[in-house]
């Protein structure tokens, strides 16, 4: 490792009251000092790593932390000012305080509504066909539930049991956002979303036993365009093994129940599902939240829970489940537990080559920014916007330009950038639909496209940052803070200086090239 012991000195600062950093940093990515596991999560994770003979990574630096936690919690890059203030803040509890602030930001609701809209397949057109009005209503409901931190069991119960118009009772769109309205297809979607289970692999009887709970869902059109009423209709001929006594259904755990005509079977199912003794319900969601924040489930893939796919750390999973239940299904509590932990705050630089390391969370995994987060970050840095429009209904709808991509409601909105960078099509609700794999086409686009070049070259915001009234170091520092959320190292400053004085590029071109290079660096493109 050739980058170490770099002191960030006062001359790098801009603005009044330049501060001298007292502690020299090990690398821009790690902080000094050993691990002091305080939380139960850390005891369980580090204990497991010790058993495996794996040393965890160092704690990440403040600069890495501020960037990481912004991207992970609110899907948004910190501004230069936010990064700088945090890095220079000397108060001991600043990390936890930042986590608490971020959990209350509006972007938290935007970002996690995007995630939930992926899972719930919020999309106007083929193959889901929610249509635009319902997409807006549904997305607004999802977002508000997240913003208000509605208890997770209530959130799910409402999705599963509501009846009414898809415009006025948005929760009912759960039953519309499935490729097929057959009871078995509904059962599969419910199992996948709220149990983390792929019911398509179940045997027929088990699936049809569960499907019976969804065999009396009725869909009725109205005179309004694409309005649909979703209700319980006891008159729909019973599905499955229908003996004279009423509709028989079987819970996924194998226990049978006879349904009576006066009770909506969806409620019977939902009550069973959200019961604190249900073996799937809490487990599924805590495992997912863990995987969203740490890049990998304790059971992995997080939506493929089955007996032959065990948890790597069963005690950890059990601990999180208990915490969720004892805190009345408050998901933010789970976010907080994870984010506060040293495990979450480890650097991305592993100290082991062993494959079990990554699977047991020995370091923070590199992950490419999601398509929407990436384009929002580029817009923020350059002060530019993107144009999105929807072709249905005619006349076309144009999304206001100040809207951010993470806040887009409709997965059907066409965008070649978002598609190139792996936005999920929202066809199936599988986590794996989103692809963060790099491709040559993505590299071409970021390195050399008119789209990105225009953003950089014609950006008034960058031009302002590039004003070289001070010295070139100040300009470089501003760009580093805006793009990489950290101060440059001495070595980097030397490279920048050499480049601008080399004579191969002229004046402003050198600073444009610096912005371009930082945007194209893996450090920018990856959560780290």
């Amino acid at each position, binding site marked *: 490792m050739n980058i170490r012991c770099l002191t960030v000195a006062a001359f790098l600062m801009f603005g009044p009251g330049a501060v001298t950093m007292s502690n020299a940093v090990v690398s821009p990515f790690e902080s000094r000092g050993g691990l002091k596991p305080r939380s139960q999560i850390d005891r369980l994770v580090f204990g497991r790593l010790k058993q495996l003979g794996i040393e965890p990574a160092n704690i990440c630096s403040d600069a890495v932390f501020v960037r990481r936690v912004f991207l992970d919690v609110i899907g948004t890059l910190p501004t230069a000012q936010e990064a700088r203030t945090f890095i220079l803040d000397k108060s001991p509890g600043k990390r936890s305080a930042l986590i608490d602030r971020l959990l209350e930001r509006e972007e938290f609701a935007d970002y996690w509504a995007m995630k939930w809209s992926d899972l719930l397949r919020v999309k106007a*057109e*083929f193959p889901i066909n929610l249509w635009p009005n319902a997409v807006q209503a549904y997305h607004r409901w999802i977002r508000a539930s997240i913003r208000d931190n509605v208890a997770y069991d209530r959130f799910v119960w409402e999705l599963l049991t509501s009846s009414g118009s898809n415009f006025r009772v948005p929760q009912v769109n759960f039953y519309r956002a499935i490729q097929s309205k057959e009871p078995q297809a509904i059962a599969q979607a419910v199992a996948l979303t709220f149990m983390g289970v792929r019911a398509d692999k179940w045997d027929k009887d088990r699936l049809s036993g569960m499907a019976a709970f969804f065999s009396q869902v009725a869909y009725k059109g109205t005179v309004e365009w694409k309005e649909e009423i979703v209700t319980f209709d006891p008159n729909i001929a019973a599905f499955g093994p229908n003996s004279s006594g009423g509709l028989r259904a079987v819970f996924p755990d194998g226990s049978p129940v006879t349904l009576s005509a006066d009770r909506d079977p969806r409620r019977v199912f939902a009550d069973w599902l959200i019961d604190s003794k249900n073996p799937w319900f809490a487990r599924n969601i805590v495992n997912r939240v863990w995987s969203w924040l740490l890049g990998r489930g304790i059971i992995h893939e997080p939506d493929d829970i089955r007996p032959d796919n065990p948890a790597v750390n069963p005690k950890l999973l059990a601990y999180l489940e208990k915490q969720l239940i004892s805190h009345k299904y408050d998901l933010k509590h789970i976010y907080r537990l994870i984010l506060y932990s040293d495990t979450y705050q480890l650097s991305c630089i592993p100290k082991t080559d062993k494959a079990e390391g990554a699977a047991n969370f020995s370091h923070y995994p590199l992950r490419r920014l999601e398509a929407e987060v990436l384009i929002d970050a580029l817009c923020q840095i350059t002060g530019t916007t993107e144009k999105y429009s929807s072709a249905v209904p005619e006349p076309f709808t144009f999304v206001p330009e100040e809207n951010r991509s993470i806040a887009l409601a409709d997965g059907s909105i066409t965008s070649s950038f978002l*598609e190139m960078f792996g936005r999920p099509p929202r066809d199936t609700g599988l986590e794996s639909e989103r692809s963060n794999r790099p491709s*040559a086409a*993505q590299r*071409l*686009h970021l390195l*050399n496209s008119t789209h990105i070049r225009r953003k950089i070259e014609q950006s008034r915001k960058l031009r302002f940052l590039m004003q070289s009234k001070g010295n070139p170091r100040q300009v470089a520092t501003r760009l580093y803070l805006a793009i990489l959320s950290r101060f440059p190292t001495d070595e980097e400053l030397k490279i920048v200086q050499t480049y601008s004085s080399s004579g191969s590029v002229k004046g402003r071109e050198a600073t444009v090239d610096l912005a371009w290079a930082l945007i194209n660096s*893996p450090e920018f493109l990856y959560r780290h």
Partner: protein
Amino acid sequence: MSMELYRDTRLSSANEAGRVPFTGRASLSRRQILRNGVFGAAGLLLAGRLDSPAPAARRARAKAVIQIWLWGGPPHLDTFDPKPEAGNDYCGPLAKAIPTNVDGIMVGELLPLLAKQADKYSIIRSMTHGINSHETASYIVQTGRKPGDGQVYPCVGAVVSLFKGYDAGYTGLIPPYIVLTTPQGRFSEAGFLGSRYKPFATGGDPARTPFAVEGVVAQGITEKRQKSRRDFLGKLNTLGRVMKGDPQLAALDQCEKQAYDLILGDAGKVFDLSGEKKELRDQYGLNTFGQSCLVARRLVERGVPYVTINSRGWDTHKDHFPAMRRKLPEMDKGMATLLQDLSDRGLLESTIIWWSGEFGATPKVQWEPPWNGGRGHYGKVFSVVVAGGGFKGGRVVGASDEKGEEVKDRPVYPVDLIGSFYELLGIDPDAKLPHPQGLTVRATPSADDGVRSGGRLKEIM
């Protein structure tokens, strides 16, 4: 309508019928056909493979496909299925049909140049799927699949990209599946195959000089600056140095290398039209569609297996006829020149041309406001044109009725067309597609998938 019921009876008759695709159809009245709609229209459910098991993989006749995609639904009555006898209510001001260089084949009056090339292409006048909404029809026409079974299948371009692209030894720097110039939108080309098989959309406009292909051709950046930037980027890669050997960053690095090979190397010159003769460029038409046809030829010439020309603006609900007078002459010029040019270069034999929209346009003109002479969406019957790559020219397949409203003869379903393409391309229609959940999915649907078929286009292959 009950698909289940329908399926049982049809299956047995299809099995007996074997390769005679029309058996059983006579028993359906038009009313039944109308009522059955969508996938219940005349024709057969695909019973196993109607064709003899294709020894296709051994005899690939086509190497590439140029898909001319007319988003919005080109009107069959104004193009390749004129009905001058149907009167003003159907023809509007475009009441004339003109003869072609093949006896007995007539086309619309706005296609005089394509009329001279009719010996090179075949017209399918009985294409049908019955869907009138853009997004679902686009899906059906390009995947051959019926929606609603929980899967989203890949389109022809993605499947060709799978079987003829990088996984099959294609080594070109130009991606194997190109769309000129913007993505179709409202349509997921790759389906469950995932983003790796999505097309590369060029962006830019080939009618301008230079054709600024997104990412490949950067105006105003010299090669020298490209190189010094790249070097600068490498030096500033602090995270990359600290995490040397990380497999994810190595993969990113590999992508970057490929990108620079394209930016700095010669491969990108395929998009530079300045070397083409001026007369030829004029013949193609100095507009986006015409020059896209020229770029498509150049791509195919260099081994790119699948090119989509995405032509927009065919969704002409209002003022349809003035729009046709603008659009059809451009289309006529570009496509006619493409056929001639490919033929002159000996490339037509190995290149399939596929001209199609997601559906046709309503035969009966909507004269009333607000349409004022418009045509709507029409999936019940429409025309598709194919040429080259093993397809015969100068033929007409099937027919619509006297007003172009119903299939009269030889229904052709999307799967028939797509299966024919695969056969000509040497792609086994039974080949397994890689599925993320490990399901067994074939390149073309089978009887179990409940997809209707009239049989592959043997008559023109």
